[in-house]
C-alpha cells in the first residue's frame, strides 16, 4: 500500500509521466487498430473456410442422393431419332447437361423435378446410323450438373440397316407410345401366355409427345400387350410380342394416330 502511494506520488511529480501516458496511448492504439482487427480478420477468413467445407459436404451429399432411371428409345422402328425418358427417383431436382450416344455427346439442358419425369426432344443420330454396316450397338447415357452419369437402362440399342432398331441383351418389352400433345390416361397391361398379368401401369399423360415404359419379362414366351386410353371414348390397342433367346428385347410402337 505504501509502495503504491509512493509510486503514484513519484509519477505525479515526474514530468516523464507524460511520455509514459503517450506510450501507453500508442500501445493501446496499436492493440485496437492492428492486433484486434488482425484477429477479427483471421476469424472471418476461418469462417469462410468452414462455410466452404459445410457447403461442399452438402454438395457431395446431394450428389450421392441423385438417382435417375434413363430409358433411351428410338421414336419408331426405323427412325434416326432417339428420345430419352428420364424418371427421377430422388427428391432433388436433377439437371441434365449432356447426353452421350456412344462416343458423341450432345449438350443439353433439361431439368427433372424431384420424383418427377421428363422426356428429351428427339436427338438426331442420322450421321451415326448411316455408317452402320450390319448391326451396330448404341449406348446412351446422361450427365448431370452435379457430376453423375447414368446409363440408359435400355442399353445397348441395336440398329441394323435391314430391320431397323432391335433389342438389347436382357428379356424385356419396351413400349413406346407416340402422341399428339393432349391429355391422355393410359392403362397398360402385359400378360404372359398363361394369361397372368406381369405388368400393370396407369399413367396420366399431359401435353407430352411420347411416353415409354420398359417391361422386364422372365424369359422367352409370347406376351400380350394391351394399351387402353380412357380419356374420352375408350380405345384399346393390343399386340402379341414374342420374346426369344435370339431377340430377348422387343420394341412395341402403337400407331401414333390411333389415339
Amino acid at each position, binding site marked *: 500500500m505504501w509502495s503504491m502511494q509512493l509510486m503514484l506520488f513519484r509519477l505525479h511529480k515526474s514530468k516523464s509521466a507524460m511520455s509514459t501516458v*503517450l506510450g501507453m496511448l*500508442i500501445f493501446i492504439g496499436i492493440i485496437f487498430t*492492428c492486433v484486434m482487427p*488482425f484477429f477479427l480478420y483471421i476469424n472471418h477468413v476461418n469462417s469462410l473456410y468452414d462455410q466452404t467445407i459445410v457447403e*461442399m459436404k452438402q454438395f457431395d451429399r446431394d450428389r450421392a442422393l441423385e438417382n435417375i432411371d434413363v430409358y433411351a428409345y428410338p421414336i419408331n422402328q426405323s427412325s434416326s431419332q432417339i428420345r430419352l425418358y428420364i424418371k427421377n427417383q430422388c427428391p432433388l431436382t436433377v439437371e441434365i447437361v*449432356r447426353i452421350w450416344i456412344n462416343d458423341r*455427346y450432345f449438350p443439353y439442358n433439361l431439368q427433372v423435378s424431384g420424383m418427377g419425369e421428363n422426356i428429351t426432344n428427339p436427338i438426331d443420330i442420322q450421321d451415326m446410323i448411316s455408317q452402320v454396316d450390319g448391326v451396330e450397338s448404341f449406348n446412351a447415357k446422361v450427365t448431370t450438373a452435379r457430376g453423375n*452419369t447414368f446409363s440408359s437402362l435400355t442399353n445397348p440399342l441395336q440398329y441394323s440397316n435391314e430391320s431397323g432398331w432391335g433389342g438389347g441383351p436382357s428379356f424385356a418389352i419396351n413400349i413406346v407410345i407416340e402422341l399428339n400433345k393432349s391429355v391422355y390416361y393410359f392403362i397398360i397391361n402385359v400378360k404372359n401366355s398363361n394369361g397372368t398379368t406381369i405388368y400393370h401401369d396407369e399413367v396420366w399423360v399431359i401435353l407430352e409427345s411420347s411416353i415409354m415404359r420398359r417391361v422386364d419379362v422372365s424369359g422367352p414366351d409370347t406376351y400380350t400387350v394391351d394399351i387402353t386410353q380412357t380419356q374420352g371414348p375408350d380405345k384399346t390397342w393390343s399386340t402379341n410380342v414374342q420374346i426369344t433367346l435370339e431377340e430377348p428385347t422387343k420394341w412395341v410402337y402403337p400407331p401414333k394416330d390411333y389415339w
Partner: protein
Amino acid sequence: MRLLSNRKALTPVVATIVLCGVVLTVGISVWSLTYSITRSLEENYYEEIKRQIDAVSERFIVEHVSYDNETDILNVWVFNYGEVDIQVDVYVRGDAEGQNATAILIPHGQMERIIVPLVANMSDELSITVISRRQNVVYATYVVPSS
C-alpha cells in the same frame, strides 16, 4: 516572462518536449511497422486459406473415355462440375502407358477432351489417373473395346 528569466525551468520543459517527441516518433514507427506486418500477415493468411478453399472446392470426374485405334489416341473427357477452374494432368497406366501433363485448363462447369497418345490393343485394361494442380486425384478404368 518569469519562465524565460528562470533558466533552470527551461531544461525540464525542453527535456519533456524532447522525450514526448521521441516517444511519439518511436510509437508511430512501431505502430506503422505493426500495421504493415499485420496487413501482410492478413494477406498471406487469406491467400493460404483461399488456396485451401479452392482445393476443397474442386470437383471433377472422368466423364467418358474412348480409344481411336486409327490415330492411337486415347480421348479422356474430364468434366469440372466444381466451382473453381482447374488444371489437370492425365496419366494412363496398365496394359498401355501414356500421359498428357500439359496442365489442361478446364473452367468450372465445363468439360474438356484431353488427348493421350498411346498404343493399345483390343481388351487392354487401362488405369486412368487425373491429377489436378491442386493435388486432387480422380481415377477411372477403361477396357479398350473391339473396333
